């Protein structure tokens, strides 16, 4: 499967990228404390699509109410974080950029921690996360823009500053929290986990993530203009300010939605885009769809492990790093590195 000159994916890759998440999802639906075979999973799904009830109520409830929303959330979060990481890396022409580069994840996490401190319910926590994530990026933009020269590097710098400001605020919330009940809740929430998934939280976060991912898929060829220097980009004849603005807004909205639903899930936004760049080069025609697919698969696998390795659920960001780092190093050594 050699790379095509025009940067499009070959037919074999397209099939793999579409089928792989479905296979992963069906297998993951069967794994857990109660083991369900893929055949039974199919029966439940077929019955659900037809609007009927499956034979076993227990199996149906496990698949449809417990595991399915969680897997949908894994798909959305994995695809969303990967594609926003990919967009930010290109936007800043910096391989170390992550969805958190503009401080959005820290802001959203602060909002959620504050929500827990005040004692909001899940939806309230999610809304606080979204609002503070947006607020953090607005602050970054205010602090970093308005300069004649410098442009993007000012924004990256102020993003790092705003990010650490909100990290400090999180520490302050923890400090102020009740050590018996609230502090563990906040700490556990910050480590990330998809256990809060249900159709109600999904209905709030999913539309934003889906809209963002679809947008990136639509403008993916034009995203190739993102890493260009200012003058080069301007000379392309394309409205680059608009392109950059849309990229920032979409990636920020996706990240804030993800963090507000499942806490800070690190690594996905860095690991998956780089994996795709090593496999397919830098053309966004291929790395955007690849990031979406591989991000979803990676997150399904990691979350399935998080909920089934031990009796107590393991926070997902611990696993993303423990699986991600070695995997990344092997890939990097094999492919001989990459560049943005």
């Amino acid at each position, binding site marked *: 499967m050699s790379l095509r000159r025009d940067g499009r994916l070959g037919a074999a890759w397209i099939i793999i990228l579409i089928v792989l998440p479905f296979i992963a999802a069906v297998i993951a639906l069967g794994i857990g404390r109660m083991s369900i075979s893929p055949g039974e999973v199919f029966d439940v799904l077929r019955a659900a699509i037809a609007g009927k009830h499956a034979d076993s109520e227990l199996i149906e409830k496990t698949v449809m109410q417990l595991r399915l929303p969680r897997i949908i959330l894994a798909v959305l979060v994995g695809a969303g974080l990967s594609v926003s990481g990919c967009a930010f890396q290109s936007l800043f022409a910096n391989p170390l950029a992550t969805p958190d580069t503009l401080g959005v994840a820290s802001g959203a996490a602060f909002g959620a921690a504050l929500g827990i401190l005040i004692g909001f319910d899940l939806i309230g926590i999610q809304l606080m996360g979204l609002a503070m994530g947006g607020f953090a990026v607005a602050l970054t933009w205010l602090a970093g823009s308005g300069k004649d020269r410098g442009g993007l590097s000012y924004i990256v710098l102020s993003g790092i500053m705003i990010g650490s400001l909100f990290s400090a605020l999180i520490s302050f919330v923890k400090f102020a929290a009740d050590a018996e009940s609230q502090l563990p809740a906040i700490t556990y929430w910050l480590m990330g986990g998809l256990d809060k998934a249900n159709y109600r939280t999904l209905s709030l976060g999913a539309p934003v993530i889906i809209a963002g991912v679809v947008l990136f898929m639509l403008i993916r060829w034009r995203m190739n*203009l993102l890493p260009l220097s*200012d003058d080069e980009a301007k000379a392309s*004849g394309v409205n680059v300010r608009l392109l950059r603005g849309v990229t920032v807004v979409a990636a920020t909205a996706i990240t804030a939605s993800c963090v507000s639903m499942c806490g800070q899930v690190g690594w996905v936004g860095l690991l998956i885009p780089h994996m795709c760049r090593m496999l397919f080069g830098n053309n966004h025609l291929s790395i955007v769809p690849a990031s979406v697919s591989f991000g979803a698969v990676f997150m399904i696998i990691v979350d399935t492990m998080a909920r089934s390795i031990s009796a107590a659920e393991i926070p997902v960001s611990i696993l993303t790093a423990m699986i991600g780092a070695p995997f990344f190093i092997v890939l990097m050594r094999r492919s001989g590195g990459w560049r943005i």
Partner: protein
Amino acid sequence: MSLLRIENGSFAYRSGPQTLKDINIELEPGEILAVLGPNGAGKTTLLRCMMDMLHWQSGRSLLDGEDIRSIPASKLWRRMAYVPQARSAAVSYTAFQTVLLGRSSRIGAFSAPSEADMKAAEQVMERLGISHLADKPCYAISGGELQMVLIARAMAAEPEILVLDEPESNLDFKNQLIVLDTMTALAAEGVACIFNTHYPAHALQRAGKSLMLSKDGRSVFGDTTSVVTEDNIRRAFGVDALIGEVETPHNVMKNVVAVGITEEKVPDAPCEKDKDILASVTVIMRSNERASLINSAFRDYNHLLIGRMGLPHRKSEKYIISVMLEGPAADIEALSHRLSLIPDISVKTTYEQEG
């Protein structure tokens, strides 16, 4: 009406003296304009202002008489293309993908390049002789090759005006020649080229018109022979230079040698070459491919012509043109220089002995 004009362009950075003052240039299709000046005189700033990447503080740039600021970007950048300095270019894509990016203004926001776009990119690469680089990543090719890829990207937009920022800097002897020859060939096909350069010799050998910037904001614009002179080089660069000629069997090429740093201040008085003299020019062409360029040069200097003889040499299918001239020495020199810039022909001028 000229293809591209700058009218009284002035620009200063917020913290600093006036960089550019009352710049006036004019450019026609197929002409090459060299922008010369010492470091810090504002060569790159001039190009950026001209293309409206920076805004003139007063004055304006006109494309076919229309203010560039009022032309929508997608339209402007189909007619004009920019080749940045290689070291400031993004290099993450393969050469082919980089060239394809030159088609951006013709590709919709939600679309990918069409077959026609791909074909156009392939053709440009073939025309510039870099097809073999297509699948190599730009960070893995040499500086000269990257410069050619960037020129190809610009040409993929099918522009009428090509703006090049120091295209031959940091290149070795051969690659400099490849880049300059490419520019000359594109101009011969009708593309107007503007390039910044550190080499006065390249202006003399390639450009019909030149703009020389000084650090104090003053500038001289005109035919290269009247701009790139020993006096002006002394004034703008503070360097004593000698302009000499190197003769090959086909051509006479001008060259500049720096002899030393100027010690005393130079008087401002321009020296004029307005004495009428006699001269003759002989041109030999291998085919009549360049005939229209030669004819248009003679047409523009019609007032100098006192006799003309064209002779196709049937046996070898070559052409000889011989022209007798009378007029101001500066005009004859300008015509002779213009002919010397046309590629693929042999041309020499003989001047009357003075005194």
